[in-house]
């Protein structure tokens, strides 16, 4: 086991375009780190540089206390699960899992013992003599994991390992990976573009955009205290709504109505600016008629015409179109495209209680939890309302959770 330390890592291809630009990231020993970002953000490239399948243009990559920039993949003692699993089709499941051990010339006796043990852990025992072609997607995925686990590598690297599975299996395997990582306590770097995987699996999540590291933090920190528009928009599904607003004293004038800034810190952030972008998560809205009086007082109500509603049983979404100045609308569209979306119109997405009876076409009264809104600088995208105290608190919390899981693992038998 080892920590992975990246300092000012740059990857440039032949055309000079930096696919990864000046990334510095510490993955602590035993930590589960997620690399996330829209397609083409450089997350896979970064992972492949860790494992040694891509050359590093500049910067320093350390595994443990050893600089590995020029070390061949086979000498890095890492194991990797590929997107397509890369199972060797000519070998049985047993030999696939045993492959790294065979290369290391491990004695037969030990190979047998360790493969059997790994297969037991992954419930592959009865499939050991089959060929990969005869396995289901989930089984193949487990074989790939088995091959990664068996050699007791210093770290696990996952390159979108679940993206080829259907939704249900993906959920199961996700829990399986989390359980396994907690149990083995091996440093793990996991690349994904999937929100849920990023939020549920990682001790910390690193968000990349066009090769540049945006923010590293616990899932909660990213969700609650994003550093900029990009992270705010990328984390959370449906995405945070960004409403253009002009500032009038401590009031924000948005297309949905006027919002009071009661929090002095937020008011201070907006002060002196003419135009800002207000970020409100869909779940910060509610059908005003379902909000109790005491809660109502902590926020504010606005009236808006609902365009479409989607009732999902456990929750409900409503879409509220609004007009935005052309330049800001263009900027928002650009952001949406960067986030792999394709939002054509400016509209707010509002999450409502499933019990809400608001219907399409209604002029609805919506309650907004103004305490949870963020204010962004439209020019730089910077979050003006990040609460450093809260960030520190979330950081301590995440560390405590991680250590308690590690403690639980050490206590656990096996």
């Amino acid at each position, binding site marked *: 086991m080892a920590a992975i330390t990246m300092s000012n890592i740059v990857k*440039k*291809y*032949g055309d000079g375009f930096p696919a990864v630009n000046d990334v510095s990231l510490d993955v602590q020993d035993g930590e589960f780190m997620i690399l996330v970002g829209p397609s083409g953000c450089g997350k896979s490239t970064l992972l492949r540089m860790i494992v040694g399948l891509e*050359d590093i243009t500049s910067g320093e990559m350390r595994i443990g206390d050893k600089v590995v920039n020029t070390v061949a993949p086979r000498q890095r003692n890492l194991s990797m699960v590929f*997107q*397509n699993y890369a199972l060797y089709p000519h070998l049985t499941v047993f030999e696939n899992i045993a492959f790294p051990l065979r290369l290391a010339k491990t004695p037969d006796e030990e190979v047998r013992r360790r493969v059997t043990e790994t297969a037991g852990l992954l419930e592959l025992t009865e499939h050991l003599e089959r060929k990969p072609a005869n396995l289901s997607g989930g089984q193949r995925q487990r074989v790939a994991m088995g091959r990664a686990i068996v050699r007791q590598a210093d770290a696990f690297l996952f390159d979108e390992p679940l993206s080829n599975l259907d939704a249900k299996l993906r959920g199961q395997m996700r829990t399986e990976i989390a359980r396994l990582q907690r149990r083995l306590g091996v440093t793990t770097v996991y690349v994904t573009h999937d929100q849920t995987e990023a939020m549920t699996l990682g001790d910390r999540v690193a968000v990349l955009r066009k090769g540049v590291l945006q923010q590293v933090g616990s899932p909660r920190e990213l969700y609650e205290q994003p550093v900029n528009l990009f992270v705010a928009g990328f984390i959370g599904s449906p995405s945070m709504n960004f409403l253009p607003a002009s500032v009038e004293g401590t009031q924000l004038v948005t297309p949905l109505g006027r919002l009071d800034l009661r929090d002095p810190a937020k008011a201070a952030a907006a002060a002196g600016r003419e135009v800002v972008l207000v970020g409100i998560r869909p779940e910060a809205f509610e059908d005003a008629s379902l909000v109790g009086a005491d809660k109502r007082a902590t926020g504010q109500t606005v009236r808006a015409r609902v365009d479409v509603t989607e009732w999902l049983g456990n929750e409900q979404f409503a879409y509220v179109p609004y007009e935005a100045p052309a330049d800001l609308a263009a900027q928002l569209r650009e952001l949406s495209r960067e986030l792999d979306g394709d939002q054509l119109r400016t509209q707010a997405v509002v999450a409502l209680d499933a019990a809400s009876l608001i219907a399409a076409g209604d002029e609805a009264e919506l309650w907004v939890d103004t305490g949870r809104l963020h204010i962004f600088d439209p020019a730089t995208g910077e979050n003006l309302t990040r609460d450093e105290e809260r960030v520190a608190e979330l950081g301590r919390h995440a560390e405590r959770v991680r250590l308690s899981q590690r403690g639980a693992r050490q206590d656990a038998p096996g």
Partner: protein
Amino acid sequence: MTAVQAAPPAPAATTDRSRAERRLGLLLSAPAVLVMLLVTAYPLCNALYLSLFSYRLTAPDDKRFVWFGNYVTALTDGLFWQDVFTTFIITFCTVAVEIVIGFGLALVMHKAIFGRRTVRTAILLPYGIVTVISAFAWKYAFDLQSGFVNSWFGLGDYAWFSGRWSSLFVIIVSEIWKTTPFVSLLLLAGLAQVPGDLGEAATVDGATAWQRLWKVTIPNMRAAIMVAVLFRTLDAWRIFDNVFVMTAGQQKTETLSFLTYRQTISRTAIGLGDAVGVLLFLSVVLIAAVFIKGFRVDLSQVRSDR
């Protein structure tokens, strides 16, 4: 898979790894390239050089530099042009017939509902048979003494090998028999790449089977057809084995390859023979150029990259 395959373009050739990769690549290619060069480049240069001499192996002392004299001799000789014509006739007829039959066979293999394996194996068999033996088989079939053709088709004692056109006919038949399998396999591969839903869409649009064939299937396998035509044209242009076995070039059935062989090996007229050989080589280059430039047969696309 997409993520990894579509992944990064090759890095600029600066790092150690890419240097090592280049070295290894060249190293691995070296033996094959050297053998191919040894057997082609040197003899070709040698042929070019010797074709400028009047030189017979039997009279090495008479070796004289005659500039392009041998080429003039060859190009002004009626025999050369007769051989060109013969070669052209054989090439044209075999390729034309093979494309049609080959396409038919490809359709059968593609669509056959039963006995598919048997049919495929049977079609493949002539491909594996040694050309000389196929030539013997057809020679004996048309032979007056041992052949079944005359007696079965009531042709009496029609002597196939005593006339130019009838001899050429038999040569062409044997060539077609032997090489159609190759054509049909190329066309089958092309056929398999025409998406099935194209045909279905055309059916929905109201096309008959015949219209589907001409308006959907064939235009979509243009690349395969052109490659088959090119390969077979160049192959037939070199025809030698059948002619040697069946007529030995008698009855004006001599082809360019046979002429070259006869000059260099049988008559040991090295200078003249090499000149004819060079002309044969140039004609192949010309045909290939016409196909690749003229008909825009993109071999790199067809051959190497998917």
